[in-house]
């Protein structure tokens, strides 16, 4: 299953410790306002990378969902975005959302559309992100935290 793990060898600690310099956008999410900031920065970066306006909006929306999840469930965490412009298969934007929150016990359940533990929500957060993006992987450990790695490729036409 794609959404279980990135790969067996994903070093979750390395993701948590990854330095800000490795990314084009690095935002700490700790307050509610940070969600809107993350959204705006993602939008700007996607625009610079030459994505279509529709894809820019999809990327910004996905970042908004990820940032809100961090804020709601883990209180704090971070969003990191990287432009990979000379990827073999074309320009690519990678988003990593990580937190040291409570973690997710039932990943399959969380990925189900309509499932939510939060009162004010449609329950399409994570499954929505997966639909909007081209690649999606989630790694989570109860008590340690959650990492979501997701990306979108710029369309050739």
């Amino acid at each position, binding site marked *: 299953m794609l959404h279980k793990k990135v790969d067996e060898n994903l070093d979750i600690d390395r993701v948590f410790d990854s330095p800000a310099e490795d990314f084009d956008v690095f935002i700490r999410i700790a307050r509610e306002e940070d969600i809107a900031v993350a959204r705006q920065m993602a939008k700007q970066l996607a625009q610079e990378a030459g994505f279509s*306006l529709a894809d820019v909006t999809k990327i910004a929306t996905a970042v*908004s969902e990820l940032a*809100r999840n961090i804020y709601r469930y883990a209180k704090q965490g971070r969003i990191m975005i990287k432009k990979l412009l000379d990827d073999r298969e074309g320009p690519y934007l990678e988003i990593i959302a990580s937190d040291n929150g409570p973690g997710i016990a039932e990943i399959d359940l969380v990925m189900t559309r309509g499932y939510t533990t939060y009162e004010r929500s*449609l329950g399409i957060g994570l*499954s929505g992100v997966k639909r909007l993006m081209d690649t999606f992987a989630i790694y989570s450990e109860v008590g340690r935290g959650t990492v979501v790695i997701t990306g979108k490729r710029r369309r050739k036409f």
Partner: protein
Amino acid sequence: MKKLISKARVVPVICLGDFLLVPIQIDLDDRTVGLLQQQVLEEIESTRARAVILDVRMVDVIDSYISYTISETAAMARLMGCRTVLCGIQPPVALTLAQMGVMLQDIAVARDLEHALLIAGSQSGVG
């Protein structure tokens, strides 16, 4: 249920006959969305409007939380006897909402203000 006592105004609300026109021209962060809902409901109560038109032409990102709050506001407005019309959704936003699988319940969608007035005017009293 907490009482709606706040008088915080985050958007301008224009009274147009029996309708309320709410142009949303601010970046919708979570707090603002909550305040927006409160303000709209208060204005509906005080004006006894029969339809409220939310104009989102200037909104460039609508995520699941914002769309949920809009649906929720519409459901609340309906219980107060007021119909909700959403107008001016931008094409990229429409594509994003559709791809996420968002459905807007209790809410009519209009192309532009003219169309919104038409929907609000011709069908209110029914819903």
